[in-house]
């Protein structure tokens, strides 16, 4: 699964640590998500969508 997490985070000039804090996960997890090597659970995907104020489908794609 692909995602636009890195782009969205860069647009907001957030660090991985800041995004991790907003999502309630570790920085390592944010890194794993950004590199596409870890697919989030549905609750975390919804949380990511809430944080970036975008629909899930605009952040994640197959």
């Amino acid at each position: 699964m692909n995602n636009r997490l890195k782009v969205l985070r860069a647009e907001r000039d957030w660090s991985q640590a800041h995004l991790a804090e907003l999502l309630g996960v570790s920085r390592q997890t944010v890194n794993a998500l950004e590199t596409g090597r870890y697919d989030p659970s549905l609750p975390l995907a919804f949380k990511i969508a809430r944080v970036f104020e975008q629909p899930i489908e605009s952040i994640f794609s197959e």
Partner: protein
Amino acid sequence: MQPKLKRLLAWVFLGGLAAGLVAGMAGFGVGYLSASRPEVAERIAVFEVIGFGLFGLIGAVVGLWVSIYWMRAIDEAAREAHKAAWFWGGAGALLFGLPLLLIATLPQTATWSLPDWFYGRSDPIAHAALGAGGLLVLMLAGYTVAWGWWWFRRR
């Protein structure tokens, strides 16, 4: 690391120290009794076994409680890493015990002797403990490797 996990680690460390202190004092007491009043030491020998058993049981319960707290506190990716480490590392490492188990069924191995790594003892209980310890080491090693590999692949 989350502050509550740091606090938990600090408590585990202090708890370990306290448990070590209690065990050390108990060991000193029993040792002193054995040297000064062997007849009393002999009478309480059975309570030593019960005490050690209870000590281990309490340790297991505390360990389980800490694990539950830890697993609930970490995020989902970290939890996934532990699950993968348990399945691939822990259970996978068990398979490496299989050749030993198969060899042990052969009559040729009946005369083999095990090393006396368990406090220099070579009685059946020591051999059982050696087997359990060996399995534990094997599983922990597999767990650690698989856990490290999981995070390495997602760095």
